[in-house]
């Protein structure tokens, strides 16, 4: 347990090599802008005009200085001032329009992407969720999408705007004085080199920091949910040490990153000042040699030397965001590309009502392959038939594969061999939703959503009215405790139902299944945490309800299933025995053993006094 590398740091957000300017990725992101092409064109036009107005101003200033200030023509100056003012106002308005418009486009595209990703993930089969930590999927739908929003909204358009700006500045510089323009641009290679150097190093660091952040988050997530276990087992110190270790790695990764930024920013500033110095020196020397350099041009160049590097700086400044966005996009598309969702049949069979005949025919199933790549069979050649209206029970040791049978019936997983039939139709020929709509499953692991009792019972289905909800609660004996809650059906049950007792949670799950009124009921240890008395009451009520309804039940307490029409005894993935309770007892096999074990304890413990005979007497009355 001392080694903490593996558990918290699977290949999760190990950021893969992502090229920030990966064309394929960018094209794919741009796909999401397609529906808003009209808006994009408008935004681009606005950006184009805006990026012309910015560089126009230093030029106007130059005109003002050379043509009017130097000669003292204040009238003319006023006109220039007016132009300057108009250019400024224009640029301000356009800049506002551009900003909002890009956000508008971006947010709409992000909305599309986010909902697509969510639906996609939701459609994945359960084997996907077994393998993928939920935290990772949450990251995909939230922060990864969020990171992309910067690119989708401003990214592309702003980048183009920056390019336009570069172009216009260069244009003005060259028209004013081409030699000076060349001098200014001489530092460009240096700038490019520094930027590349920075990019390469920071990319490395960036990947490292992402990894550390992911580690930190999953550690906190897991330890907050399991804090009571940490405390109960006195593991505070060890876990604190591990946390400090992870936190330390996280800090170290960031501190290394700071170094590169600390070099990069001053360098950029420095290089643009070098350009400025070069302009002054070259301009001055040029003036000495009699070139037509005016003061206005010099002042304009001083401004351009700064302005020219701004877009470049902007682009590098965006680097972090861009890198994050690209990494996010890569991961999102990774999820979208890895689609395992079960294909709907081409020609689905429609079942209006299910009579409830269920058949497993030579079903083989494995969740995973073993180390040699052979399937690690969990079910081996399982066959059985449940006639409509019958109740069939599955018993067997833990891990025998009972829950797996239920999972397969709902097609949560795909079987490798054999077939499963409902009313004689292979479940692969049914639409998934149609299949599941007819089967009501109570899962072994109860899950409640945070929110009201009512939300948990109806699952937000508006077609369920209050009366049927209350009636179902009565059947399951849940009404008493619900009504005792301060807010009754509106009581918030908290995360995973943590403000209820375990049995109460199970009862709610039971009500949920009843409300659903399915044709086939599948109960996986549905009352394992409920006391015997309540269980008996539920059973009586159910007997009336399940009349004529096919029921498949798993239970460890044999008392709850002995009325079943057929009992299947499972052992290590195989159906070993089958028959009614009586038949199985007579067979003297596994079932007999289980049964004897269950009731054996009562006699020796009670022997020696008259208790059992008392009980027996009363029972016989």
């Amino acid at each position, binding site marked *: 347990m001392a080694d903490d590398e*593996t558990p918290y740091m699977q290949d999760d957000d190990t950021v893969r090599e992502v090229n920030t300017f990966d064309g394929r990725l960018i094209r794919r992101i741009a796909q999401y802008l397609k529906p808003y092409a009209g808006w994009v064109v408008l935004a681009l036009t606005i950006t184009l005009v805006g990026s012309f107005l910015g560089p126009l101003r230093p030029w106007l*200033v130059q005109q*003002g200085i050379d043509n009017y200030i130097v000669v003292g023509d204040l009238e003319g100056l006023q006109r220039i001032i007016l132009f*300057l003012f108009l250019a400024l106002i224009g640029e301000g308005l356009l800049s506002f329009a551009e*900003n*909002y418009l890009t956000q508008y486009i971006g*947010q709409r595209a*992000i909305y599309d992407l986010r909902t697509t990703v969510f639906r996609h993930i*939701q459609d994945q089969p*359960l084997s996907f969720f*077994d393998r993928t930590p939920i935290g990772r999927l*949450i990251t995909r739908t939230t922060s990864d999408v969020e990171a992309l929003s910067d690119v989708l909204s401003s990214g592309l358009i702003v980048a183009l705007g920056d390019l336009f700006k570069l172009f216009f500045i260069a244009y003005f510089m060259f028209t004013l004085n081409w030699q000076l323009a060349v001098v200014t641009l001489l530092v460009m290679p240096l700038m490019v080199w520094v930027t590349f150097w920075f990019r390469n190093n920071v990319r490395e660091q960036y990947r490292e920091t992402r990894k550390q952040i992911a580690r930190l988050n999953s550690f906190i997530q897991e330890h907050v*949910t399991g*804090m009571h*276990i940490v*405390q109960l087992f006195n593991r505070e110190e060890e*876990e604190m040490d591990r*946390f400090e270790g992870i*936190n330390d790695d996280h*800090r170290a990764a960031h*501190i290394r990153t700071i170094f590169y930024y600390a070099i990069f*920013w001053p360098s950029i*500033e*420095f290089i643009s*000042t070098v350009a400025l110095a070069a302009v*002054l*020196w070259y301009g*001055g020397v040029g003036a000495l040699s009699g070139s037509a350099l005016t*003061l206005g041009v*010099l*002042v304009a160049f*001083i401004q351009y030397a700064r302005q020219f590097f701004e877009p470049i700086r902007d682009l590098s400044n965006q680097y972090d965001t861009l890198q994050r966005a690209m990494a996010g996009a890569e991961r999102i598309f990774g999820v979208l590309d890895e689609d395992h969702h079960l294909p709907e049949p081409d020609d689905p069979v429609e079942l209006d009502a299910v009579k409830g005949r269920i058949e497993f025919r030579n079903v083989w199933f494995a969740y995973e392959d073993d180390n040699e790549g052979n399937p690690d069979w969990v079910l081996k050649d399982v066959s059985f038939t449940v006639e409509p209206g019958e109740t069939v029970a599955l018993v067997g*040791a*833990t891990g025998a594969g009972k*829950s797996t049978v239920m999972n397969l019936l*709902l097609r949560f997983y795909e079987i490798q061999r054999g077939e499963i039939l409902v009313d004689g139709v292979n479940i692969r020929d049914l639409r998934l939703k149609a299949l599941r709509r007819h089967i009501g499953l109570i899962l*072994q*692991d109860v899950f409640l959503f*945070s929110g009201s009792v009512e939300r948990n019972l109806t*699952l937000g289905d508006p077609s369920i009215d209050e009366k049927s909800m209350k009636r179902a609660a009565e059947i399951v004996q849940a009404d008493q405790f619900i009504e005792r809650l301060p807010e009754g059906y509106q009581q918030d049950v*908290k995360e*995973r139902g943590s403000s209820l*007792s*375990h049995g*109460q949670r*199970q009862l709610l799950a039971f009500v949920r299944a009843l409300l659903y009124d399915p044709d086939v009921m599948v109960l996986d240890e549905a009352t394992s945490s*409920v006391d*015997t*008395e*309540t269980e008996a009451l539920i059973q009586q009520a159910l007997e009336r309800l399940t009349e004529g309804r096919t029921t498949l039940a798993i239970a*460890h*307490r044999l008392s709850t299933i002995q009325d079943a029409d057929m009992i299947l005894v499972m052992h290590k993935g195989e159906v070993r025995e089958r028959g009614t309770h009586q038949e199985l007892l007579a067979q003297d096999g596994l079932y007999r053993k289980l049964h004897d*074990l*269950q*009731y054996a304890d*009562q006699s020796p*413990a009670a022997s020696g006094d008259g*208790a059992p005979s008392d*009980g027996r007497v009363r*029972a016989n009355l």
Partner: protein
Amino acid sequence: MGALSRLNHFFWEYKYLFVPGLLFTMISAGFQITVPMVVRQAVDSIPRFVRIHTLYEGTAAQAELYAYFFGGLLLFAGVIIALSATSGLFMFLMRQTVVVASRHIEYDLRNALYDHLQQLSTTFYQEYSTGDVITRATDDIEKVRRYIGPAIMYVTRSLVMVLVAVSVMFVISPTLTLYALIPLPLLAVSVFFMARMVHHRSDLLQQQYSTLTSRVQEALSGIRVLKAYTREDAEADAFDEESEKYKWRNLNLALVESAWRPSFLLLVGLSTIIVVWMGGRLVAEGAITIGNIAEYIIYINMMTWPVASLGFVITMIQRASASVERLHRIMDREPDIADGPRTDASIQSLEGHIAFHNVWYQYDDEEEPALRGVSFDLPADQTLAIVGRTGSGKSTLVRMIPRLLEPDAGRVTVDGHDVSTIPLETLRQHMGYVPQEVFLFSDTVANNIAFGDLDAPDDEIRAAAREADLLENVEDFPDGFETYVGERGITLSGGQKQRTSIARALIRDPRVLIFDDALSAVDTATERNILRSLRERQGNHTLVIVSHRLSAVQAADLILVMEQGNIVQRGTHEELVDEEGLYADLHEKQLLEEEIEAL
């Protein structure tokens, strides 16, 4: 903003980074701001040079002058570059100190928070959702860090630059400076209002982001339920709705933020225009030079960013302040279950004699009490069984023994010591607790079992697994004990999970073993095996067992029957079956079933 003062001790702690850091910031800003002065000198000198140079047109001195002026111009350029290089060097040092310090503080803060989280009890975790706690430990701490590092850096830098620039401008021409700064009050006012709007709107946005995240988190955690009940579409629609809301809040914020930059642009641009206009007049009057205009323009451009960032910095600081408050709402919470003045450090070992004296407990003021005056006494090494209806308070009762909950009234004692006087570590060290709801870490089976005893060698892990009747199952796995169980143990069967949790408790070889309905998911044969191995240990531990199956409780030395927080019956199995009441009814029912079967 007062909340931020709570961070002051960090500045003190890292003064060896902050003091030089702030110094570097000022030096760097100082050097940077002198560049325009040199530029002005150069701009003003060039026409002078040219004039003198042309004056000597054709004379021999011209070549000499040319060399002289050439050198002069080179000197200007050299000085500018040198100034900028120095400024850059200090900027580098500034980042290496202030920003690094902020990372150190982030580290300390996060450790402190996690350390504190480890001390807080169940009551706290009931109140805060997991998502909330995670946000505190990540987002909020990051916001605080930004205040400590970048924000402080920017503020210092901006202040130095603005102060120096304005004073220099003032010396050159008070009138022009006043004119140039006319837009400044406007700037200040708009910064303030916009920052406030941004602040408000981004809070709303943040809220919606949390809603969205928890929605996803819940939907995916409960994906089995959603799929079984074909609620995926409804859930996706609900998600669409939340996303739509999120989109609009984003756009509301974008509206203000989009106006932000243009406003600065306008106001700063206005300054430039005023400088050219008024400056032009002043040049015509001969009051200032054209070089001064160039200088002014550079200053104004230089100040744009610092002043503009000031607005963001203000929001950054406001946010940090809110985050600090949120963090301290957790940090200030006294761990309600912890060692205190009443703790008796001399208690180092426990025998396991457990007694409850009139214990009351209520989870929530509005709810009915979960325990109403519970009393019993269980000598060490005996077995206590608790039965009773769902929700009758069994789990609540057993949670009091390892002090996961503390009674509202009454006392819980172990070996005659009130549990609140036993050092928490000692108390829990002697307990093996198997909670009703299994929680496993996403780790290997072996590591999950060894969670109960860090240094356990492999054979002890095996032994514990055998006692929990898990060994056979684990050996069937391709990877055996190295099998990686998914989140919360998702890839194990219900019974396998539960038995891993049992093994985790058994491996500690505790004085007190608590089984809270810990056999609900195992079959009868397994249950029997486990009970047998427990019985073999009999005399080595006190056992508290909650169960719905009489088979598991019959052999207990004391059985408590609970009903709505009261103990309604107590005694041994023999005593209870003879007594009218719940227990006899239950027993009868189970016997009756047996009878019917036997027919």
